[in-house]
């Protein structure tokens, strides 16, 4: 059998796991795909390789797929997201001196309490005439919007008292050590690297800001997704199978060893295994803490691209002042996520397929069964730390309320 070549660009992060495992465990090959992985160290390069055809698809921060489609800072290039590569898995790491004013070493407070304390520290800094400086991995990243969501919801005036800068994940620990930033919101293993070096302490995790927050996606040019549906279906079936392998706790050590290889994350297998198994060391010298759902994968149709997730991201982009709200853009942003392609890829299999393409984000307080076109599907609690739900049909009301 001849294999179809398919190249995927990625950044060295734990949530690049599915493409890596799909290749290394022979799951891509089983779908007739010769998957080649291309590592880069900036999202801009991952995006450029995708838009200029060096890669066929990319592991991408979800909002960047929307920003690229809308043409923010560059001519528009419509991208499609037929598959979510994972939920959450990021953390907020502060310089140890600041973290000490929020919680005891090795302790993880609820987001409301820690947020209030952080807001007080921001205020104190502002009184001195300075701004607290936070790093995020990209202007259009879930990290940026999650951090802003938490700070704003804790009473911080972001425009006035905070400065947010971009730091590439591998430089996070370095920037903390040099005092260039006070804190950073970044994916694993880069928080743990800062903790291990003693230059940072984890004070929050993004799953405690939004229990089911959309994180990395598989993005490809819309034209390509529509021209070669059969190839794309096989790719996402291979990624789905990789998700099943990822959550098999008996294989966590093997999976971590694969991710740690020099050509992938080139990092510590132990550290990666802790992230995979939701055990996070918050401060140097403390025992790892089990944080359920720190990184959420595969279960509850976590890989299904809900249009309402794209809608929520667009709402945050408006709140951050990154886009002027327009109905046309709002529709375009939601159309980036392609539940139709996901459904077509798994039609006739035993993979549960939601009947709806959008939901009220953050409205599930306890596990419920939802309507499907195939299989049985239960969705667990998906709330935001501030208890606000997001209705994609009521964007204006949501934005008005968040401005109060």
């Amino acid at each position: 059998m001849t294999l179809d070549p398919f190249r995927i660009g990625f950044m060295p992060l734990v949530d690049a796991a599915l493409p890596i495992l799909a290749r290394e465990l022979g799951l891509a090959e089983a779908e007739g795909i010769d998957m080649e992985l291309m590592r880069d160290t900036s999202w801009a390069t991952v995006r450029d390789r995708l838009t200029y055809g060096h890669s066929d698809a990319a592991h991408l921060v979800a909002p960047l797929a929307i920003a690229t489609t809308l043409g923010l800072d560059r001519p528009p290039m419509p991208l499609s997201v037929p598959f979510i590569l994972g939920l959450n898995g990021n953390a907020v790491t502060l310089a140890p001196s600041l973290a000490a004013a929020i919680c005891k070493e090795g302790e993880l407070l609820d987001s409301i309490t820690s947020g209030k304390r952080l807001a007080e520290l921001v205020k104190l800094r502002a009184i001195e005439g300075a701004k607290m400086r936070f790093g995020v991995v990209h202007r259009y990243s879930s990290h940026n919007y999650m951090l802003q969501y938490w700070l704003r919801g804790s009473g911080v005036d972001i425009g006035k008292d905070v400065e947010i800068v971009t730091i590439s994940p591998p430089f996070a620990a370095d920037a903390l050590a040099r005092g260039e930033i006070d804190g950073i919101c970044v994916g694993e293993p880069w928080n743990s690297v800062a903790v291990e070096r003693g230059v940072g302490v984890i004070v929050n995790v993004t799953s405690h800001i939004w229990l089911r927050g959309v994180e990395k996606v598989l993005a490809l040019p819309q034209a390509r997704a529509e021209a070669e549906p059969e190839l794309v279906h096989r790719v996402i079936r291979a990624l789905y199978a990789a998700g099943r392998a990822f959550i098999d706790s008996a294989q966590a050590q093997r999976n971590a060893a694969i991710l740690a290889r020099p050509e992938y994350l080139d990092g510590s297998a132990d550290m990666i295994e802790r992230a995979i198994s939701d055990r996070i060391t918050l401060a140097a010298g403390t025992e790892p803490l089990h944080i359920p759902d720190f990184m959420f994968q595969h279960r509850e149709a976590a890989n299904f691209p809900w249009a309402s997730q794209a809608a929520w991201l667009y709402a945050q982009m408006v709140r951050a002042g990154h886009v002027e709200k327009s109905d046309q853009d709002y529709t375009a942003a939601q159309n980036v996520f392609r539940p139709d392609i996901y459904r077509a890829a798994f039609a006739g299999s035993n993979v549960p397929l939601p009947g709806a393409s959008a939901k009220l984000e953050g409205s599930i307080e306890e596990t419920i069964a939802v309507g499907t076109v195939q299989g049985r599907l239960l969705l667990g609690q998906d709330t935001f730390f501030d208890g606000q739900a997001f209705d994609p049909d009521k964007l204006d009301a949501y934005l008005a309320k968040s401005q109060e």
Partner: protein
Amino acid sequence: MLQCNRVQVVRIAVIDDSAARAAVIEEGLREAGLTDLHIFLDRHGLAAQLEACSPDVVLMNLENPSRDMLEETFALSRALARPIAMFVDQSDETAIADAVDAGISAYVVDGLRKERIKPVLDLAVRRFNAFNRLQTELTEARNQLAERKAVDQAKLILMKKRGITEPEAYKLLRSHAMQSNRRIADVAEAIVTAENLMGGAL
């Protein structure tokens, strides 16, 4: 209608994490008379230095890890007096594709006329490609050297073990390579590795 005639030269910032490549690009641009050049190698404090330099064109290697940080700076500076946007005029998609293929990302101040940008970009593409060729040649030369060394070692091993002359040892290597459909260098490499594993003196 009055046209604003900018008589000043194009100011170019070259950001590269390879000093050697930056030098190759700098030389090419200077030769072409583009002398208002500023080279940045260190990512620390880059944003501030770049702002102070206020270039018309920023050339950067595509794989530079500071790109996300700089794009953020460019997005923010839209509100300032000298907005910088990524150089991707729709009509110049091929020029940009060529640049990306060569490993360049380019950013240009909004409103800078295209006929002034194009020569800079074309030149950069040529210099990047020249540098890439140089690198490939260097790697090939290194590989050839290593291969020759392995063949010499393998010949010595065969001469010693089988009591044959050097030309005979080479013939043996060659015939085995032909039979097994491998390169002579690969067969030699295998012999050297095996000898090392067996605790040979070589």
